């Protein structure tokens, strides 16, 4: 427990340092002479407060939401591969958001709602297809990966059908990027994330118990089906609100939980630590995407994929080795 607080504190410090860096030398405009004075209303107020601060705040929110979503999914299914960005939940949210934007001409909260619906539909489809006297996480993940391809194809179709200007606006849902969000957009995302976080509180003890398997959890008084359903809906919600504003920033949900758990050295799904790791990853990736390659600016989703994909390969290679030739 003490280690948990200590580690979370350390992540918070890293996050603050990264935040400061992003504000000082992040993308768009020249480096301000003094970030603090700019925040207080000094010379470079426009660059810092109007351009960089919203971007930073949204990056933190998106990362935290993806971190929690990934950890809940991975814990529920007892499988590190079961994160929403691998099993098609994020893609479902993306496709629905893009569809709402391109076909329905919607924007703002309506896009979030569409993303949530899309992600929920994907989660439901995977559950139904993989259900055979209960959930097998192996089947769930494989079917999810298949669904992810399908949904991705649908998204590609939507984009090619759209006219060039609109497609440009929907491109965010293809790669994941943060852009320069307005405060209203950030506010809505923050409120939704807050509501989801609150609804997570009473579900957390049941999530811990589900780690022991459905039989033991039932024996200890967890209503397994109900808890699983509620936790899935909340996790889908977290993934959806992040994807609605930033697209499928791939691999963040996938890596946040395992990193948090390894550092905290706990068996538990450390949701706060996962949220912090997710935020650190997205802020760092966005910073790199904006600054590392000189003038070429790369969307955050490209950077997270560059970092996350090797981890996936490593995980698969290690799993194969420990299981022999299976």
């Amino acid at each position: 427990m003490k280690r948990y607080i200590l580690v979370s504190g350390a992540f918070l410090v890293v996050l603050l340092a990264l935040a400061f860096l992003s504000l000082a030398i992040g993308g768009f405009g020249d480096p301000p002479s003094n970030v603090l004075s700019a925040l207080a209303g000094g010379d470079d107020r426009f660059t810092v407060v109007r351009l960089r601060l919203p971007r930073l705040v949204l990056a933190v929110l998106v990362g935290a939401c993806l971190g929690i979503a990934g950890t809940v999914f991975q814990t529920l299914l007892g499988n590190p591969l079961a994160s929403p960005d691998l099993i098609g939940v994020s893609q479902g949210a993306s496709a629905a958001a893009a569809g709402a934007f391109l076909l329905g001409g919607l924007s703002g909260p309506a896009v979030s709602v569409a993303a949530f619906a899309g992600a929920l539909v994907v989660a439901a489809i995977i559950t139904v297809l993989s259900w055979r006297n209960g959930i097998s996480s192996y089947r769930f993940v494989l079917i999810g990966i298949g669904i992810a391809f399908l949904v991705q194809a649908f998204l590609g179709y939507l984009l090619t059908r759209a006219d060039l200007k609109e497609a440009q606006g929907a491109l965010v849902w293809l790669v994941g990027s943060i852009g320069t969000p307005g405060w209203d957009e950030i506010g809505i995302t923050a409120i939704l994330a807050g509501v989801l976080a609150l609804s997570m509180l009473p579900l957390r003890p049941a999530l811990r118990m589900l780690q022991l398997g459905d039989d033991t959890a039932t024996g200890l008084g967890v209503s397994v089906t109900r808890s699983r359903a509620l936790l899935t809906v909340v996790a889908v919600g977290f993934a959806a609100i992040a994807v609605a504003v930033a697209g499928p920033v791939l691999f963040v949900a996938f890596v946040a939980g395992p990193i948090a758990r390894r550092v905290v050295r706990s068996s538990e799904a450390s949701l706060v630590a996962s949220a912090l790791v997710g935020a650190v990853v997205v802020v760092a990736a966005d910073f790199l995407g904006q600054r590392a390659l000189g003038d070429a600016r790369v969307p955050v989703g490209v950077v997270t994929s560059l970092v996350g994909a090797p981890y996936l390969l490593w995980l698969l290679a290690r799993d194969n080795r420990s299981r022999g030739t299976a």
Partner: protein
Amino acid sequence: MTNHELRAEGITVGYDEREVLSMLDLTVPDGKTTVIVGPNACGKSTLLRTLARLLRPTGGVVSLDQRPVQQYRGKHLATILGLLPQQPIAPDGITVSDLVARGRYPRQGLLGQRTAADSAAVAAALLATDTVDLADRRIEELSGGQRQRVWIAMALAQQADILLLDEPTTFLDVTHQIEVLDLLVDLNRREGTTIVMVLHDLNLAARYADHLIVMSAGRIVAQGTPREVITTEIVRESFALESTIIEDPVSASPMVVPIGRFHSPS
């Protein structure tokens, strides 16, 4: 003492099309140790899982204190009826004390806050199962026997009055089988906990059971004290095995000595 009545009335349970239990009646003797035996696929695990409300019978009803178990709130039922599945899953990296503390879930509030009563119960459970020294170890570092003691400690922390165990001695060598079964006797005598378990070994079952249930093909073939139940006829009917029954020189319980094609009394 506990004073609960766990009962199955005319239960029929099936997976898909196959009927595993048909019209089975059972009243679990309160405060006693009941052992269920039978050949593979006779439905003994299914019976235990149905009593533990892991399976819902397609016909009949399992009731606790005259009320169907499905009508109880999960957490409330778990304070009375505990369960140790055959192969419980421990999350990666979990420590013994953390695992045992999870047995307190049914007695904790909505947000799972820990109380002094929780800590006391965990400490008592570690003490009773002789796992105090293991408290900070990780589960995966333990031997099979130690691990099983830890799982029993978790069930103890739950402080349920009735404890159901599905083959608690599988995968253990004979030393640890005896150790685990003795631990359950302790629990039964000290706390008056009603114990119902499925065992594979007939002779250990006869030694540890107050009440022995022999099953075959989804039915109860015989039940009663081991002396009443263990006869050559019953063993033949249930296990399709010829045998001689002698007295266990250590516990004076009946002991089944199997007869095979190459070994028979001459």
